[in-house]
């Protein structure tokens, strides 16, 4: 098992290097000079050159990429073109907020998505099933920025229950977490429902009922556990996306997270920051996928034995 984990972690390295190269190439080879965007309209050509020299934005593309990666290996992610601050410090300062947001949203997603999915599956074609499927469709279709503003108008401005912005207390995270979870809860409901339905039709479920087991016991013990694999996968993928892609939610609720840092940096072509954020997200996604795989082993003993078999 330990060897399996180590292998997977090592496999992340080429992935991150590959991604870093692609992003570096896209950011450097697409039109748009960072100096022009950052120095403003009145900068003269010599100002642009001074800036490029100071920031090391000159010379051969390959040389620059190698220099950058050399820095990364020693833990030096460079300084931001825009603010002249240490990139790593800027990124690290943003992680807690995004982590709280993603965890909160994932919790809401799981607490709503799985139970609703189970109920829909058990009561297939009932009013409950139709209405939960309808709600699922509705929430996936509603854009995040709209939902966020509407929640804010209702709960902050009209009812005055919750703050609209800021991160001073945990209350501030409630609306953003709901907004973020809304987009993802639908896929979880659907995947829970369909994988439950698939299992319910299996012979061994019929056997369990034939043995006289209660519905509660059959659903909880036989169906749910077997239906869990795809559900865990979706939870993992959604959580990973939330860690890197909560841009809209963070902007709408003025949260100081990784997403807002990414969007500002992309707009200003602040290449060192974009690189660091993207690599961070890549690593997070890699780690979460690994955790999902480990969860498989816990849920399904057959998979666990496969992992262990690789030991030899």
């Amino acid at each position, binding site marked *: 098992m330990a060897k399996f984990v180590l292998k997977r972690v090592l496999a992340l390295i080429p992935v991150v290097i590959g991604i870093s190269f692609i992003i570096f190439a896209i950011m450097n080879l697409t039109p748009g000079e960072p100096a022009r965007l950052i120095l403003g*309209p009145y900068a003269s050509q010599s100002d642009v050159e001074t800036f490029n020299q100071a920031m090391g934005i000159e010379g051969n593309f390959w040389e620059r990429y190698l220099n950058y990666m050399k820095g990364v290996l020693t833990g030096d992610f460079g300084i931001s073109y825009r*603010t002249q601050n240490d990139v790593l410090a800027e990124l690290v300062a943003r992680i807690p907020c995004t982590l709280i947001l993603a965890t909160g949203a994932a919790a809401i997603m799981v607490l709503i998505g799985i139970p609703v999915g189970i109920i829909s599956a058990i009561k297939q074609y009932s009013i409950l099933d139709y209405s939960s499927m309808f709600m699922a469709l509705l929430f996936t279709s509603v854009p995040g920025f709209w939902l966020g503003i509407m929640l804010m108008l209702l709960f902050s*401005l009209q009812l005055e*229950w919750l703050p609209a912005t800021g991160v001073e207390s945990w209350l501030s995270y409630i609306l953003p977490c709901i907004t973020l979870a809304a987009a993802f809860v639908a896929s979880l409901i659907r995947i829970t429902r369909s994988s439950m339905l698939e299992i319910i039709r299996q012979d061994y479920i019929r056997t369990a009922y034939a043995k006289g087991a209660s519905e509660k016991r059959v659903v909880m013990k036989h169906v749910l556990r077997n239906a869990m694999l795809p559900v865990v996968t979706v939870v993992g993928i959604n959580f990973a996306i939330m860690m890197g892609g909560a841009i809209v939610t963070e902007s709408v609720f003025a949260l100081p997270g990784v997403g807002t840092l990414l969007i500002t940096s992309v707009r200003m072509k602040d290449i060192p920051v974009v690189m660091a954020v993207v690599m961070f997200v890549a690593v997070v996604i890699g780690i979460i996928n690994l955790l999902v795989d480990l969860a498989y082993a816990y849920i399904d003993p057959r998979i666990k034995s496969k992992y262990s078999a690789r030991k030899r």
Partner: protein
Amino acid sequence: MKKSFLIKLAVLLLAMMMLFTACGGGGGGSTSAEENHLNFGLTGEPVSMDPSIGNEQNSWQVHYQIFDTLIFRANDGTYEPRLAEDWEVADDGMELTFYLRDDVTFHNGEKFTAEDVKYTVERLLESPYTSDIVIGIKGAEVIDDYTVKIVMEHPYGAILDCIAEVNFSIVCKSAVEADEAGFARNPVGTGPYKFESWSTGEKIEVTAFDDYYRGRTSIDGITFRIMNDTSTAAIALERGELDILPRVALTDKNSLTENENIAWYETDLAGSTFVVFNYQNGPFSKPEVRAAVSHAIDKEAVLEGASEGQGTVLETVLPPACFGYSEDFKGAEYDLEKAKELLAEAGYPDGFTAVLKTNEDPLYYKPAEIIQGQLSQIGINLELERMERGAFFTDAYGGNFDIAVFNTTCPVPDADSILHFYFHSSQIEAGCNLGYVDNPEFDALLTEAQRSTDSEERLELYYKANEIARDDGIYVPLYATKAAIAASKDLKGVEADPIYKCYVYDFSW
């Protein structure tokens, strides 16, 4: 067993929701007046607290509070003393002597002296961010502890406006020298507020500086809250999470003015939106074609469509808030027949096709779309190319376009900062003369106006320059939008400003 767990969970959730209801009521709407604090909305994260780096609005909003300039420019064009009690400009405009106050201390307790001014000037001269405010400046000389002389390479008509600009804020020499890189995140100035902390992406805190030389400020502290989304900022203002929001979106005017707790202040922005041409190549290199375009654009309609009518139609590229603006100047009148005639004269009786480049910012693409429609009436078919911001600016500064809509604000409210930078031939390639405009007669007037120190004479020269620009079709002026500030009604002393200058020192609850 598992079902009972779900039930417990549901009960827990319900209890939590009831808890929010219970404690939420008191949370909202608390006014900052009670605690004498100000929540100040920024529309994005400031770049830097170092005045030689932070050359954008969000940085300036904080700089206004923690730094001081030598002099202050009021909106009527007069100057008031700040760190300099008095100043003299030599008759030939080659030397400016500033007599400094001797009772000023920095936030770290150091005394403010002429050395700090000299050091500040030298840093600005070196910085690639601030070349627009050191035009003509050669250097600074310390005469004695409280007298400093700024020496010029050539006289510059708007030099006092530059010195009053916020990037010309005086920094503490010893603090910068101790940690230059750290200064951007831990600034030391002489302003009414001293810097406390900066939580990246979230907020900046400053508190009143007790030894401020003009007397302690009335509001004890300011929290600058970073709001990337303007709708969110407007909601936060309505809820009382913000007390003031300079640079509020004009589209929020209706909803905010309906709220009785909010006051809306607006004035003409010191900035303008205009059409630029490729002066050297393509169909627009012919003066008749450019003139035809200037007669074919209905500016009122562009203003109405692009900015919901909030703004002022311009006759020259200069907005009313800029020195050099003349109320009686008349630009090209809207006349489609004349436009068609001019186009025929230029050899395009049936019109032609060209590319109109713009970017994803509504300040650019909205007017561009309307102009595309208007010019099709005289047979000029423009293909609208909506580009990514960075790519657009690279093409624009590289002269790689046929026709484009451009937008600028001028922190130094002087004709020179638009006309010289955007249209003088010396700025081709070296600066932002986008269309590579090269008109020697126009150049000569601009240079003369730039170097003159007589404001009457300068006004006349700019009037003449604008006539040439109109006749040669160097640009087509469109409009200046409004600069608005929204604030809590209880906050006193707030005024709209053409470049959103906002001194909390002047406010009180």
